[in-house]
């Protein structure tokens, strides 16, 4: 990419440097120099170490860990590049923060996902690239283009290459909300599809899980977009085993794995939990052998390359780059 090396710059925030390095390596350039630090009064400070004047800038920052710190850091980086006369700034946010606060589901509930969208725009982002938004409607919160990439092609690839008995398996959605996502994967693999319905007697308390579909004697593959505290996944795995599933895998786009998630997974009947690296989880992998990773950096790198060159990104919605 020597012909474009003069007009593309990739910066990494501090949330997920590993992923940024993988992306930059695939594109064939070095990460641009930036230093992010926190002053003793806890304010974030950003110093951009090279000229970005009239450059096409990509800033990779995931919404994980200390979410607010990372978000502020991203905003300050965008703003710094903006005031330093970058031609175009693309925020690459593998895991969009506050994605679940996307509707006014209670009186006076904040729509924080919309606030984040406004903040990114105000800071000066011209374009956003993200992966598997919790609700694709979040794209409508923006007045700038948003490319919502899908993990689906990478997940399909993983299933075909890593689950030997995949032809005798069944795709299961752990809740009604994710049915579409799971059904789409089942269609692509020509597999059967089952759904787990959560009965809630009280809010936030799943009292019973009802399985719709037949899983007996099959390998069940749970598909979801987020694994946070993993309570749902654990219950779903138990339900599936009770109904005769031989093995239960879970493949999830964003492995937030907060709170006691690791204990819950270790304790569960899951064969393995497969997550993408939109969020760093190497430390968690070290204490939980059930976790496996799908590398999403080829998709991000290709999206960046295509965006930079003005090519169509649609290809990536159905294909995982080799």
């Amino acid at each position, binding site marked *: 990419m020597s012909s474009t090396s003069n007009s593309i710059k990739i910066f990494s925030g501090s949330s997920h440097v590993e992923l940024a390095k993988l992306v930059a390596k695939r594109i064939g350039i070095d990460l641009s*120099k930036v230093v992010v*630090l926190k002053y*003793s009064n806890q304010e974030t400070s950003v110093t951009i170490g*090279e000229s970005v004047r009239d450059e096409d800038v990509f800033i990779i920052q995931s919404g994980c860990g200390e979410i607010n710190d990372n978000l502020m850091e991203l905003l300050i980086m965008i*703003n*710094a590049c903006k005031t330093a006369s970058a031609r175009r700034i693309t925020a690459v946010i593998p895991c969009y923060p506050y994605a679940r*606060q996307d509707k*006014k589901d209670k009186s006076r509930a*904040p729509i924080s996902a919309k606030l984040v969208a406004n*903040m990114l725009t105000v800071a000066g982002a011209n374009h956003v690239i993200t992966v598997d938004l919790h609700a694709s409607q979040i794209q409508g919160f923006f007045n700038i283009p948003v490319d919502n990439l899908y993990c689906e092609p990478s997940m399909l690839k993983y299933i075909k290459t890593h689950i030997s008995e995949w032809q005798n398996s069944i795709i299961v959605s752990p809740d009604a909300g994710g049915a579409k996502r799971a059904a789409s994967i089942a269609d692509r693999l020509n597999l059967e599809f089952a759904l787990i319905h959560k009965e809630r007697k009280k809010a936030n308390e799943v009292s019973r899980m009802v399985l719709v579909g037949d899983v007996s004697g099959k390998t069940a593959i749970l598909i979801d977009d987020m694994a946070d505290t993993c309570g749902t996944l654990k219950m779903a795995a138990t339900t599936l085993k009770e109904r005769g599933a031989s093995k239960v895998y879970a493949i999830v786009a964003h492995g937030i794995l907060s709170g006691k998630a690791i204990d819950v997974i270790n304790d569960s009947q899951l064969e393995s939990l497969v997550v993408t690296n939109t969020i760093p989880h190497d430390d968690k992998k070290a204490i939980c052998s059930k976790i496996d990773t799908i590398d999403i950096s080829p998709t991000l790198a290709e999206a960046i390359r295509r965006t930079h060159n003005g090519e169509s990104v649609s290809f990536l919605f159905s294909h995982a780059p080799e």
Partner: protein
Amino acid sequence: MRNIVIFGGSSHTELAEQIASRLNVQLGRVKLSKFSNKETNVEIHESVREKDVYIIQSGCGHVNDNLMELLIMISACKIASAAKVTAVIPCFPYARQPDAPYKKNGELLPRIPKDAFIGYTYNTPDSTPANEVKNPFGEQSANGTSSSEISTRSAGGYKHWIARSGTLIANLITCAGADHIITMDLHDPQFQGFFDIPVDNLYGQPLMIKYIKENIPNYQNAVIVSPDAGGAKRATAIADKLHMDFALIHKERRSQIKPHKTDMMLVGEVRDKVCVLIDDIADTSDTITKAAKILSESGAKKICAIITHGIMSGDAIQRIVTSEIDQVIVSDSVPQVDHLAQCSKMGVFSIAPMFAEAIRRIHNGESVSALFSLMDLI
């Protein structure tokens, strides 16, 4: 007071309670927490429809968390049909825009240890942002490029671009939906210009004057000292009002060999006098403790510092304890309970009455100017 709802953010609930009780209203019920994935959760349990909403949140502690909480609260009130949302920010975050001292050839002055940036992580140096510049691209940068490569580039004339977040913070607060800002003693008065909405910048000065009159015996013979040239205006204003003498400490960066080493110079006479240092922010309290050293070397009898925002981060308290300074008086724009417990030299004056009066006046559509001078009102 009708049609008013006051919410306190989690940064400084005491101050919010004091302000509310002075206004004779109950604080609005709000639940502030964090989800297990560290996203901020705001639940407002009070109707704000067509109400005049005030949200009190200081820029202290975990600044980014508190700022985000404020933004979400503003946004939640706005979409819940509040008539007007005012952000009350006693200590404004990101108010200091770091100045970068450069050498004449455009090279950055190195100020931090070279090994600090080998890893690409947060770093928490115990120095103040103002006038401090870290050499971010030390021996090895994040990407493992060698220093020689970078210095060639620097020689090429590129100045490292340090983000100045002032306008960004102003825009974020505006885009969240705030209609009005109330704050106090902004570090740069120009900051007001970053906003497209009205900003009432209250002054700590009348409270400081009141404190000096009431607590410093024989204050007419004392000297007001500004610890740096930037704060001279603030300090002279107080000296003028109280007809006191004035002195200034000036930082010199003359040495070409060690350009980062500063010489401090005192301009004015302080021998055998009580010195009152005036400043707006004490963060690491490096400035005031250094100033106190100069003053005591120049024969000051007693040294007292009066400061609006006592952020006291890093080892600030330790510095004050070991310093020649006799007393540090700060406002409660930032929670001070912990600081007071750790250091007997610390004292506090309350800004709650001033903010309460400002809120009352703004709510009733009265002038706020009177607060800038007439302290008898409160």
